[in-house]
């Protein structure tokens, strides 16, 4: 179970991690500035298991992979949005973060308590007692997520080939 951190439309990668922090020596250092333009307290208050909820076009803008990486560093494993910008969607999967596209994003408010069951595809908003189901990612993409990301998946596949 985790708390929802609710954001609006068109949260671009400059909002997730502003470009001036890309020069910092590590993802750990960058992560301290995650979502800073939106919420300066985000990085210090986000708890492992909390869930980010966006609306339209989450992750638009630059292809910078530091965006999902700083989120992952803080413990983000799932993001729910009405829809995702394409590059961010891919980068999230490639780094083992599950992007869930679902209409329920409209009905989740900041600080709602959310429970997600990855086996059944159930999303429960315990604050409002509403339940939804999402279509689980299948096939090749599911294999990447199961492996923990694209690098791990390719390494495992190479191992099988040789």
């Amino acid at each position, binding site marked *: 179970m985790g708390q929802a951190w609710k954001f609006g439309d068109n949260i671009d990668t400059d909002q997730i991690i*502003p470009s001036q922090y890309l020069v910092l020596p590590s993802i750990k250092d960058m992560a301290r500035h995650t979502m800073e333009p939106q919420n300066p307290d985000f990085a210090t208050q986000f708890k492992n298991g909390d869930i980010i909820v966006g609306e339209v076009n989450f992750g638009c803008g630059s292809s910078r*992979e530091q965006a999902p990486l700083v989120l992952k560093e803080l413990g983000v494993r799932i993001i729910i949005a009405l829809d995702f910008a394409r590059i961010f969607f891919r980068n999230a999967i490639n780094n083992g973060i599950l992007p869930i596209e679902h209409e329920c994003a409209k009905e989740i408010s900041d600080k709602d308590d959310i429970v997600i069951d990855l086996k059944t595809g159930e999303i429960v908003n315990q604050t409002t007692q509403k339940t939804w189901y999402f279509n689980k990612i299948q096939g090749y993409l599911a294999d990447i997520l199961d492996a923990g990301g694209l*690098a791990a998946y*390719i390494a495992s596949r190479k191992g099988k080939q040789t």
Partner: protein
Amino acid sequence: MNHHTLTEQILAQASGQSAIVPGDIVEASVNTAFIHDVFISGVVEEFSKLPHKKVFHPDRIALIADHEVPAVSEWAGECYKTMLRFAQSQKINRVHIAEGVCHQLIPEKGYVGPGMVLVGTDSHSTTHGALGAFATGIGTTEMAAVLATGKIWLKVPETINFELSGTLSQGVYAKDIVLSMLDILGAEGATYKAIEITGSAVQNLSISDRLTICNMGVEMGAKNAIFAPDQNTMDYIQTTGAEGAFITQVESLRYDQTIKMDLSQIKPMLAFPSGVDDIHTIDDAIGTEIHEAFIGSCTNGRYEDFVIACDILRGKKIPGHVRLIITPASMSIYRRLIQDGLALDFIDAGAMITNPGCGLCYGKHGGVLSKSDVAIASNNRNFPGRLGHKDSQVYLASPATVATSAVHGKIMDPRISF
């Protein structure tokens, strides 16, 4: 009869399949992969974690330093070194440091041609669809995987067709076309879709125009944007030495949506602060005071753009409170501006000319905006903080609108210059 869209044709060919439909996941072979300086360290680090010791094909990889040139931090200098070390160890010869923006160099150097699959670690990689390629941006982990395997997983997109007819009025340009497209689709209207530009007006669009339009495809959320190769394309790639498999546009394509646009109806357009899809005609902003004007970037930093701007600025002086920044997209463009006398005209008008590269569009150098600054710029993004302080205001416009506004110290209709 073949009903495949251009994007479907290319992806079918690249994945060795005869028939694919939108929604299919394919593994496509990559013809060109490029990495820029900001992401080189991440790519090299991820590549080092993979069991592959060598890249799939050194001659299909380009490494380009363009974002932080000259180095604006010690980190940037280290990125150049990483790039050069990786190039040397992997025998990659396509290395360009401080020669210009990746999206200008890729076509100039002949690294892209019709029918190719191209990926780059930059969201504006959609630019290269102008030459009839499938071109899209990817992240660092994905690029490491491409370097290792030469392949990429892609979801076959549905296609939105913009069918262009008519002729642009004087003072209206390709940037106004793409801003009009954004007005129709919004910032997410083409998410995970291809944009294919067709119609009788296409033959009158130069390669420079097409690069501008495809460049901003990603601002509509598009996976890629593409023009069918025609005589203009073939003439261009003959000068660059690019290879390419000719692909043809066919009738009865299964477009998800067709949007007809009459170019004669388009006015000079602006994207208002702070959203690429907050689109207005010039009339809504006339008289807005500006502090900075920027002409450059991978969207509008080409020679043709500077000719248009220079024709407006020549013999005039910009007001003292305005900073006009000119950033050529490549060294060859810069050289031409000098040879043809345009550089001197810009300087005489009061402009600053910077070295070729991403410049201000990267938001860390080359004219960074302060808190209360209002700017008009020819680049592709105006998110809060994109060009400097998060409270600065940026209007996106064509080079003609930027130049006209710079001369007057306030946003003005470029048509008054003709």
